[in-house]
């Protein structure tokens, strides 16, 4: 493996780590807000969050490039403030990855949040637990699986991204070149064995990550089955001998 490949691996991991951490901080309140929302605008907001799932990464990358570049809203504002615009930079890559992986972080969290029985939160409220206290003492431990799924999926998805990275990052070796774009370079220069090494690595990595998510979700299913036991009981209470 040549030094450029090692650089690409390092940058990929750094990018995935940083964008996952920041993304989780944003996704957490957003997912909670969506899960508690009763408004009729909710489907529209959910669709907006899910957009990166269906949009070609190039479209996303294109608009981000325009926005973050020297002529764009964000880029020009930064330039005025004396800061470098974000096109073809690592920071730009982080922003792009976050937008691209947003549904992968929000959806598992939102799912997990909406499964927390309302009764539990109400009960905690009558025991003097303030909203933030309830979130940390109940919601978080009960939705641990959602958090792990969201983290793992965002991380893995960022590692595997190509289109957005290519559009915003520009594939500059040692700066914005990640594994997927490095593979593309190898293929372009007909270095199939180099491409294979990186590709195989990604393949094994992705498989492991997905296996982990699925095994975690199985455990989580059991957890909620026990939480919902009372609910199942109440529907069939007439026939059931409880004690």
């Amino acid at each position, binding site marked *: 493996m040549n030094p450029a490949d090692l650089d690409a691996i390092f940058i990929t991991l750094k990018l995935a780590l940083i964008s996952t951490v920041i993304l989780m901080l944003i996704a957490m309140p957003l997912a909670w807000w969506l899960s508690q929302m009763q408004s009729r605008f909710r489907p529209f907001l959910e669709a907006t969050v899910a957009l990166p799932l269906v949009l070609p990464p190039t479209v996303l990358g294109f608009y981000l490039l325009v926005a973050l570049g020297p002529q764009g809203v964000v880029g020009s504002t930064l330039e005025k403030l004396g800061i470098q615009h974000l096109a073809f930079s690592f920071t730009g890559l982080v922003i792009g990855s976050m937008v691209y992986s947003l549904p992968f972080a929000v959806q598992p969290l939102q799912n997990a949040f909406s499964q927390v029985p309302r009764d539990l939160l109400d009960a905690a*409220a009558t025991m003097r637990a303030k909203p933030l206290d309830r979130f940390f003492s109940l919601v978080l431990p009960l939705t641990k699986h959602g958090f792990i799924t969201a983290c793992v999926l965002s991380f893995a998805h960022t590692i595997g991204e190509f289109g957005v990275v290519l559009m915003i990052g520009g594939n500059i070796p040692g700066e914005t070149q990640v594994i997927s774009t490095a593979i593309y370079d190898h293929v372009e220069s007909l270095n199939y064995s180099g491409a294979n090494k990186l590709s195989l690595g990604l393949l094994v990595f992705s498989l492991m990550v997905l296996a982990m998510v699925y095994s975690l979700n199985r455990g989580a299913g059991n957890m909620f089955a026990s939480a919902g036991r009372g609910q199942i009981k109440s529907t069939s209470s007439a026939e059931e001998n409880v004690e």
Partner: protein
Amino acid sequence: MTIAPLQSMSLQIDLRRKGFTLSVNTELPLQGITSLFGPSGCGKTTLLRTIAGLNDTLTASHGNQITVVDKNGSEYCWQNEQGESIPSWQRQVGLVFQKPALFPHLNVQNNLDYAWSRVPKQQRIKQLEPTKLMTRMGISVFRDRLPSELSGGQQQRVALARTLASCPQLMLLDEPLANLDGGAKNYFILLLKQLQQETKIPMIYMSHQLDEVVQLSDRLILMDSGQLVTQGAIADVLQSNEGYTRCQGENILFAQVLENNREAGLFAVQVANTTLWFPAPAQEFAVGAICRIHFRAKDISLATELNAQSSISNSIAAVIESFSDSGHKAEVRVRLRIENANGGQAVSATITKASQQRLELAVGATVYMQVKAVALSI
């Protein structure tokens, strides 16, 4: 912030939604256990959630008012007419739900600690400390178990313990026995009553089960279609016209325990100057204590003279106060008074109009009432 239990609550609530109205304007004294009795869907749960501050629609709307007064006489406004309200977590109201709602990731001990650890130090009631409470309620053996490893009855007991561990000023119970079977239910009723007497925390108990209400309550509120029908001390409410109709002629007599002989299986109580004998009940009754005898108006037969030739051995002398409509055209409700030094206790009997004529019953006459089936409770 106070430590004293509440002594009264003033409610002024007007909530109208499609197909549902809750309109309550009343002053509730909170002593002992107050039952809120009414058919399913009459607005009991909505009222309870409103008191607990969990009704989001209502807390945000104008024109509703909830004010409470504690035993020290301090007044607190939970909700005012301008739509401002105190959130649930500041109300110090404990709520026991129909479903146990235990925290599934915490074991029994930690469920109780969750409540206890959030009570400010100066508001803690020593006897409600989790370890003591678990021993008192017979749940210390499961302290390390998760809720999913407990039966429904055990879960509900833990839920009650957890609510008590939050040292509330008022407890609200929303049909907590709905998912329990006979044995667990009787145990729970007894426990609830004893705990109320030990802690002096007032309770509002919601139910549509008449037997629970009659056994538990000190005060009774009848509710229908989102409105309060009547309220008062249980014996008075049962003897009112609404109470007689809605509670199927249930009667409560207070009696003093004279003897509780487990070996012979005999149990004696005194009502006015009559001694009544019953088969000894399963539960403990201390001699000298006041117990309650429940029976339905239809289970009473009336005789004009003391009849020794009957298999019903208990006869109580009573004076006929009046006759009124029973709701059935062939029957009549006889209002009776059992005289004693303290002014007596009222009872209703339902008999056929034919019997009334045959026995020539008249207001002011003394009759002997014989009761076939009774239930006893503390």
